[in-house]
């Protein structure tokens, strides 16, 4: 997945490290034991291993982390969808992306309609509670604005594949796809026989995005991130990625909770950059901050049905907007 390993490396000297500005100065993905047998070599001990996340303006973070041709996952299961980051990718005109998301939702409908993507990996491509994603359908049915290759899975497969990516596994093994036609149209679904019972089990390659972007409620000043409420696959998507960007509602003193030690926390050293973007999940929602703009999800149906109306909306609401 992804063609930008070299591009990623070219960024390696530009890392600004939180509270140690320019000391660390690199941006290198963690090694992945899971890349056997075509993995990257283990990193030299001369290079310090992991770095903490850097706080960057959103435009800078996107410019540094998202490259043309990348496999990109913007995750968030209904909740905490990183719309602001998606809009910044549109503004920067990044193209050739493989977009990965369980539910493409409006954020990918917009990115696909703007021509950012050449491939979509997904498991449910609708407007939740409303109907179709018309830009996605237009791309698949009429190749507008460009052809869109699709790799289609079930939710269970994608959830397992993100977890396998986070766990450094080459693939995810699960009980799935039984009796479905999906394996016939997706060569990235295989079956093996369980070595102990003989039961056929489904296998899909682990998801390993070049970049994962998620939105969360809070980061602390050390760059640790707290996700609360419906946490979806965000943790797995971040841990599976070579590079990770988190947009957050706000920065607080600490995200550690003495009374709630089992919270979903992404440690600083699993994240490359953090951008503070209040409202960065709108029209999706941020639990404890603002509600889902259900009316916009309904209104999007009419906007997205028509190519001209869609383009006008993007011009007015994405391109005219100043990057936060």
């Amino acid at each position, binding site marked *: 997945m992804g063609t930008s390993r070299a591009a990623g490396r070219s960024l390696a000297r530009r890392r600004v490290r939180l509270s140690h500005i320019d000391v660390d100065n690199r941006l290198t993905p963690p090694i992945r034991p899971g890349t056997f047998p075509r993995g990257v070599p283990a990193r030299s001990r001369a290079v310090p291993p992991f770095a903490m996340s850097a706080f960057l303006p959103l435009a800078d973070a996107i410019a540094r982390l998202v490259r043309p041709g990348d496999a990109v996952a913007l995750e968030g*299961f*209904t*909740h905490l969808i990183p719309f602001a980051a998606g809009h910044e990718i549109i503004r920067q005109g990044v193209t050739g992306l493989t977009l990965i998301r*369980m*539910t493409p939702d409006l954020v990918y409908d917009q990115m696909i309609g703007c021509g950012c993507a050449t491939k979509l990996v*997904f*498991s*449910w*491509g*609708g407007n*939740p*509670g409303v109907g*179709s*994603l018309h830009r*996605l*359908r237009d791309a*698949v*049915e009429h190749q507008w604005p460009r052809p869109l290759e699709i790799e*289609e*899975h*079930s*939710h*269970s497969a994608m*959830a*397992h594949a*993100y*977890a396998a990516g986070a766990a450094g596994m080459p693939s995810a093994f*699960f*009980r*799935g*796809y*039984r*009796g*479905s*036609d*999906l394996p016939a*149209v997706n060569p990235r679904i295989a079956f093996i026989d369980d070595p102990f019972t003989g*039961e056929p089990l489904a296998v899909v390659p682990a998801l390993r995005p070049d970049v994962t972007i998620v939105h969360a409620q809070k980061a602390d000043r050390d760059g640790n991130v707290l996700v609360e*409420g*419906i*946490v*979806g*696959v965000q*943790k*797995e998507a971040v841990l599976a990625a070579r590079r990770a960007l988190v947009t957050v509602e706000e920065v607080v003193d600490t995200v550690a909770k003495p009374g709630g030690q089992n919270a*979903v926390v992404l440690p600083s050293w699993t994240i490359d950059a953090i951008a503070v973007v209040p409202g960065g999940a709108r029209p999706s*929602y941020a*639990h404890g901050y603002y*509600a*889902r703009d*259900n*009316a916009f*999800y*309904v209104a999007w149906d009419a906007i997205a049905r028509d190519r001209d109306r869609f383009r006008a909306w993007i011009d007015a609401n994405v391109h005219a907007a100043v990057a936060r």
Partner: protein
Amino acid sequence: MSWSASEMMTVAAARALADDDVCFVGIGLPSAACNLARLTHAPRITLVYESGTLATKPTVLPLSIGDGELCETALTTVSVPEMFQYWLQGGRITVGFLGGAQVDRYGNLNSTVIGPYGAPKVRLPGSGGATEIATACRRTFIVMRHSPRAFVAEVDFLTSLGHGRTGRERRAMGIQTEGPVLLVSDLCTMRPHPETREFEVTSLHPGTTREQVVAQTGWPVQFAAVVEETPAPTATELETLRDLNARTAAAHGQASAAE
């Protein structure tokens, strides 16, 4: 009291749920049916949404599967991988609700494409959770509106396994769960024949004729030896459902999402 076809469907589906059921709930009519059951005859029913919310008790119906309301009223919320690993695949769900653009006589469902996969006439949303809901839940209920385009002789694409294309594949694969045991439409309820697994009409909703069902079904539909009339929605059922829909409309600032 009079009622709409949608209300009749919701009530008929709700009645099939029991207090001990653990339901994997989809948005729309299944959500309305499950919450109606919870607010009437099955107060202890456990509702699970695939966003990770376990044992939710929403006071309004969610518009999406991941509304904050579901999380706020849940016993706890787990990650989506955990939901699919420990709860769905782990065999913890008794009833899964499914629907689709097409269903065949064996309860196989298509929610992927109309036309060929590579050059679709209509690109539908796709599987979502459905493919594994269909095989991991102890049993599934199908809820769909009757029409010859929806109730088809053969699905264009088999997204979610019912009893298989000949009614025998599910058992042949050694799948231990029961599969689709109930189909509720706006005209009737159908259940699989014990031997052939072909869905046949077991009750007609009040005012519906056999001819209407035949006309709206894309295969030569069978009727059970005894076809009953679906009991009409009671006043309590209708009032509870309408209150729920009214609260939902007020909360979402629009027409009910369950319609």
